[in-house]
């Protein structure tokens, strides 16, 4: 008797590959983004089948939800011309200048190299070995949390996690350098139905995001998943113009961006001394410190992702400068 899940797994694997091919080959950019979102959702399902619910949550929340929103926003940015819907659609679906073949081949070469590297790493890895499960399980009592993945991410390998937070910070700094201007787009005409939806869902999303963060110490979840879910609130608020960023809000936003990185690095450095190295939390305070870091990193991730979605520093510039595509 074969595993009844085998059929599901085979279908899932086939669908993920087919969707990846379709995403890359489809001509229309909008269709490509929609296919990418479906690909992300099915990948999340695949991660669940691989018994990696933490990765599945991250894939669904960040890789699919927030990235999908960012891609759609970028597409809108490419096509947007002030005026009516008709004028927007009048602009072509493909970029004005086609991407040179050399760039495409260079990208393909890099992707091929990465695939090759992964293949070599996979073939070199000992097959069916014990992995690090036993080591992590042994060390969990000293970590301050009860969930292996959180223990690895925020205690044993917290340097890597700090770098991930820094990547987000660098991204938002770059975006604010490149694009400035106040929102000149008219407020979208959202009906009462959407308002009712927002009233019901936004508080629920806040609860879910906080729950994911809180649950992270003992079950799948954590700062990145919680932060991405909370960023969705920001994205919905920005989309419906319930919140409009103003130049005066920049100071607060900057504090929000650096809060997580600052506290993370600060804690890592402050625990040094007395025979401990950097990032070595004293076991009796480990839980408190990890919760403090996770909580503030969640706030930073949420603010940063929402700001990335907004995509520009809210400063008043002359209308001509704000219109990059004029």
């Amino acid at each position, binding site marked *: 008797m074969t595993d009844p899940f085998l059929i599901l797994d085979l279908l899932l694997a086939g669908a993920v590959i087919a969707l990846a091919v379709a995403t890359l080959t489809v001509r229309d950019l909008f269709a490509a983004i929609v296919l990418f979102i479906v690909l992300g959702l099915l990948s999340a399902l695949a991660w669940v089948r691989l018994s990696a619910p933490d990765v599945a949550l991250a894939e669904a929340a960040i890789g699919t939800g927030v990235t999908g929103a960012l891609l759609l926003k970028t597409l809108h940015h490419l096509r947007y011309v002030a005026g*009516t*819907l*008709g004028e927007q*659609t009048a602009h072509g679906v493909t970029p004005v200048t086609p991407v040179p073949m050399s760039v495409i081949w260079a990208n393909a070469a890099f992707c091929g190299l990465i695939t090759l590297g992964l293949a070599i790493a996979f073939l070199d890895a000992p097959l069916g070995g014990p992995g690090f499960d036993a080591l992590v399980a042994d060390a969990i009592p000293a970590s301050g949390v009860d969930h292996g993945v959180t223990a690895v991410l925020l205690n044993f390998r917290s340097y890597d996690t700090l770098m991930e937070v820094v990547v987000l910070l660098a991204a938002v700094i770059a975006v604010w350098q490149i694009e400035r201007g106040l929102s000149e787009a008219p407020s979208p*005409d*959202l*009906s009462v*139905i*959407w308002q009712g*939806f927002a009233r*019901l*869902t936004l508080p*629920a999303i806040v609860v879910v995001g906080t729950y994911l963060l809180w649950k992270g110490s003992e079950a799948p979840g954590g700062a990145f998943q919680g932060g991405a879910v909370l960023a969705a609130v920001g994205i919905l608020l920005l989309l419906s113009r319930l919140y409009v960023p103003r130049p005066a809000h920049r100071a607060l936003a900057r504090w929000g961006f650096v809060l997580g990185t600052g506290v993370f690095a600060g804690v890592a450095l402050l625990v040094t001394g007395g025979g401990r190295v950097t990032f070595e939390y004293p076991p009796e305070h480990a839980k408190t410190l990890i919760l403090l870091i996770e909580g503030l990193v969640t706030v930073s991730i949420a603010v940063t992702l929402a700001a990335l979605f907004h995509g520009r520093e809210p400063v008043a510039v002359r209308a001509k400068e704000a219109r990059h595509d004029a």
Partner: protein
Amino acid sequence: MMLDLIAASLVVFGTVFFIAGTVGLLRFPDIYCRLHALTKADGLGLALVALGMTLKAESFGEVFRIVLIWFFVALASATCGHLIAAYARQADREGKA
């Protein structure tokens, strides 16, 4: 045993509605009919699958979570359907004007 049978038939019945919705999406002529097929049929399909799964749930907490999932998916799909239809109608009107 009886409960298993009811749960399984509810899930199968729900899947039939999902398939019907997908056929509608592929076969119906315009965006409004397609949206109609998707939001109505899939909504009912999801409700039946969720109902079937609550019968198999092991604790009250699980039932509560399934109901929550059903509630928010139904809410989101209805709202999305409305927003897409409203956008399509606006685009139609501007196209004709």
